[in-house]
């Protein structure tokens, strides 16, 4: 099925819009075997032991907050904040279905309450607070809950004077919250202004994908902006840009490597070295 679709797309693009099958959208591999886009096959247990990076082709599998917390917090020990925060529906938004129904369905399907989770714990012995986005929750879109969780995480970092790590993975602002989601860009930036003035370190990790309003707010505001290899990072989506300029995009456009080359990232880090590199950086700042 997947193969057929791919071949057809080679010849003719029949449908407008984004058509990603549910399977492709999944954050974490849950079968016994996992196949990377390059066709390498790896056992999921081995993948897990390898920080969800395929050893054969270094493909970084899309993972969620559960996996990032497991990779980063010492002994996977952390306290989660704001565990039960759920989005409201101030606009009574309805597209193909009511927004409240979409939220409820996504909650039961994904086992998440919204597209971000915050954990406090130790990273190589140092206290840190991490907010991590989950792409499996409505494309990791940023709405009121994401904005509030990030704000509170920053409040916590300010109060306890501990570094803040933000892991972004998002298609951008959540349309169903319209004006409210737009203002989350402002809200999170306001808190980051306070963090900036307080001289508390803010590290922003950009993962695949980080686009739209997330790129145009907190993701790009780190004292240190870092990314996983091969991630899609940009403001406008590739499809929109292609339509605007009427040309195909150059190879590697909007990849982490491209963004590093143009000066908007401090470094790219393999996920298997992520924890130690973060530890070293935080240590350098501390000593």
């Amino acid at each position, binding site marked *: 099925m997947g193969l057929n679709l791919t071949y057809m797309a080679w010849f003719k693009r029949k*449908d*407008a*819009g*984004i058509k990603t099958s549910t399977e492709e959208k999944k954050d974490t591999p849950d079968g016994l075997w996992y196949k990377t886009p390059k066709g390498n096959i790896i056992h999921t247990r081995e993948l897990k032991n390898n920080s969800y990076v395929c050893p054969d082709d270094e493909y970084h599998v899309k993972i969620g907050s559960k996996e990032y917390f497991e990779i980063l917090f010492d002994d996977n020990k952390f306290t989660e904040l*704001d565990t*039960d*925060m*759920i*989005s409201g*529906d*101030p*606009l009574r*938004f*309805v*597209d*193909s279905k009511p927004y409240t129904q979409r939220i409820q369905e996504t909650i039961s399907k994904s086992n998440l309450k919204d597209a971000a989770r915050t954990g406090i714990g130790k990273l190589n012995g140092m206290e840190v607070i991490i907010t991590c986005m989950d792409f499996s929750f409505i494309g990791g879109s940023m709405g*009121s*809950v994401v*904005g*509030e969780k990030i*704000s509170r995480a920053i409040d916590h970092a300010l109060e306890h004077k501990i570094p803040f790590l933000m892991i972004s993975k998002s298609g951008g*602002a959540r*349309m169903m*919250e*319209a*004006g*409210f989601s*737009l*203002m989350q*860009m*402002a*809200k999170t*930036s*306001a*808190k980051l*202004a*306070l963090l*900036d*003035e307080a001289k508390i370190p803010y590290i922003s990790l950009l993962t695949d994908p980080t686009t*739209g*309003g997330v*790129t*145009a*707010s*907190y*993701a*790009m*505001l780190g004292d240190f902006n870092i990314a996983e290899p091969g991630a899609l990072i*940009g*403001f*406008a*989506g590739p499809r929109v*840009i292609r339509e*605007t*300029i009427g040309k195909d995009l150059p190879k590697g*456009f*909007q990849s982490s490597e491209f963004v590093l080359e*143009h*000066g*908007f990232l401090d470094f790219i880090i393999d996920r298997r070295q992520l924890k130690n590199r973060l530890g070293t950086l935080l240590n350098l700042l501390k000593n």
Partner: protein
Amino acid sequence: MVLEFEKPIADLEHKLREMKELAKGKNIDLSSDIESLEDKLKTLKKETFQNLTRWQRVQLSRHSDRPYALDYIYEITKDFIELHGDRNVKDDKAMVGGLGDIDGKTVMFIGQQKGRNTKQRQERNFGMANPEGYRKALRLMKIAEKFNKPIITLIDTPGAFPGLEAEERGQGEAIALNLREMFKLKVPVICIIIGEGASGGALGIAIGDKVFMLENTWYSVISPESCSSILWRSWDYKEQAAEALKLTASDMLNHKLIDGIIEEPLGGAHKDMKTMANLVKSTIKSSLEELEGLSSQERIQKRIEKFCAMGVFTEP
């Protein structure tokens, strides 16, 4: 340009003009006919403009006769000196700015600028700024802060430019930095949506102590057309998308996402440019008076608190 729903009004206006000319040319008394036609016109205008759909307001916000940023600036100020460039890459013509005076008081104006004809539209890139536009805006804001001048931003953009070079030069970073830095500005900041307020491209100059929208403008996270294409997978649902997005001035005020609405003359801003500019001017003046009563610290704190209160969620 005449919009679909403006047509009956335009027709009646045309009729009225003809009748007046006839009366004048032939020297006949048609005053009672003219009067009744004028009444009819007034009623029609009121009815039409009181019952505009959200999509119709979007259309008005894009009306090609609508006053643009520089029109307001030149109308409001006696002296205005335009300032150019981001000191880095180039001068972005989609983002204008400069120092001007409002009844003797100097302020820094910054705004997106659209073009009136094809050539100008291209030069202004349809009001879609590149990263250097946002960096130029920030540079001017810092100049204003340095010399203790209030900042007035005039927002009118279909979005930040989604181009190849814009990505290369960090469109996301440019906007993000403005958001953070605008919260730190020690001088009063007043933001007015005068036309289109599309997403991050609008917000990039719209962090203010006071944020106003003109009556017939829109402000949201996405345009109705793009929203339609993504959520409905077709461009045909823009009216529904406009309704769903609740993107008008009164919607935004109801949700406390802006601080106020500046009323437009009957028929829209383009029907009476001078009156419109005066309304904008008096709003700026009264807001400045209020904001200057606060210390810079109080203003910054209130600015941060206001935006941080935005969002709707529940916790058991």
